[in-house]
């Protein structure tokens, strides 16, 4: 009687027809939309992989990981013009990388590797503009 999509039923379960929501005799609409979903999932992943050129996964384990993740997340946000959280991104990455296995290069920490007394730049002590 109604193979049609009863989305207008709101939160009601579609049990009344004896058909489950995932029944294959759903109207073509839904298969088209799930196709679209797959497509956008692919788009997301492609974008993510593109982003990794700038923000290499290995840096997601080192001292800079939060800023690298920030960069990655912002990249995705701007590409799709929608919200992403850091954990969304990490979850997506999980499909491609086992992040725990990555070891960051020690040299990458730069000045954080050597003890040096703190000092203010000379310009702080003079009145000249820098």
């Amino acid at each position, binding site marked *: 009687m109604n193979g049609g999509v009863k989305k207008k039923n709101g939160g009601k379960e579609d049990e009344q027809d004896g058909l489950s929501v995932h029944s294959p005799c759903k109207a073509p609409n839904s298969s088209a939309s799930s196709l679209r979903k797959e497509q956008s999932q692919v788009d997301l992943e492609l974008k993510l992989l593109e982003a990794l050129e700038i923000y290499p996964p290995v840096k997601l384990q080192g001292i800079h990981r939060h800023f690298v993740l920030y960069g990655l997340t912002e990249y995705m946000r701007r590409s799709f013009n929608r919200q992403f959280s850091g954990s969304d991104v990490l979850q997506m990455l999980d499909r491609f990388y086992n992040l725990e296995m990555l070891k960051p290069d020690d040299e990458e920490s730069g000045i954080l590797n050597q003890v040096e007394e703190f000092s203010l730049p000379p310009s*702080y002590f003079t009145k000249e503009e*820098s």
Partner: protein
Amino acid sequence: MNKKHTVSHEIKKRRVYPRTTPLMASSKDDSATDADDSAANRRRANSNTKLFADGERVLAYHGPRIYEAKVLKSEIRKNDWKYFVHYLGWSKTWDEWVDADRLMKKTAENIRKQQALDKKQGVEPKLGRSNQTKSKTPNGIPSYCHLVLSVGSSGSKGKKRKHESSAEKENTAVEKVVGIEIPQTLKKQLVDDWGFVNEQNKLVELPRSPNVDDILKMYLEYRSKKDNMITDSVEEILKGLRCYFDRALPVILLYDKERLQYRESIKNDVSPSSIYGAEHLLRLFVKLPEILPYVNIEGDLLMSLQQEFLDFLTFLQKKQSSFFLLYDE
């Protein structure tokens, strides 16, 4: 800062490196010990004549400018000390062997020389740190994005392809350094802080309240209320700052006079961010431009990061009277 070595090293420097015509009577000047030693030119380079230590931070000439570098290793070749240096913030592919005459101690005077050369090149230094803008890397692709905005790049659309973006960077004639602008009253706070510790021997009393963790939390709350929206990116940045703070504090954020206090206060696995407060957090912002280049951050993303830092500093400034304290013996 090995100021005490500067003078004696200059004398040594004139003694260590032989002239090109070894048999000429010494065109060297001054130093009585030189006159005594007519075999100065044939003196062996040895551990006493080594000017720079392995691991030491130095200033190095490269092309027309001076860059901050680190001595990775050293050797005697042809009776001269040679130093293998790494330019800080640059790819390892730039590492090279140099003579001592290309290196200088990292003193305030030499930093001024560095800034002078920067000015000559038409580059504005920020916070006393030189910008590092070499136009090409060996691969033709910039290995690190420094705190640099390329004027005229299509940064607003983001970079589409790697080779496109590197071509853009190589073509831009003018590059701007984007530093971290610390508000004037906070700069004064830092100078006062320096004075208390170094001139008056007064240290901050630990543990501090509010501590760094508290301050970061308060800022997050303040932002959530103000923006009334998801503050996920702010959270990530704050986590990053906390991470840097805990790592950086004992390494680059302390005056030597504070080291004993540090050892006494930080025991077991206590995190610095739970003990120290605004005074030391502020010092992190002075060092941030030197820490961040090791992260690849693109043009306008960098700008939004800059803006976030500035927002945070403004918040600190607002709360200056309650976050920062007078000092204790």
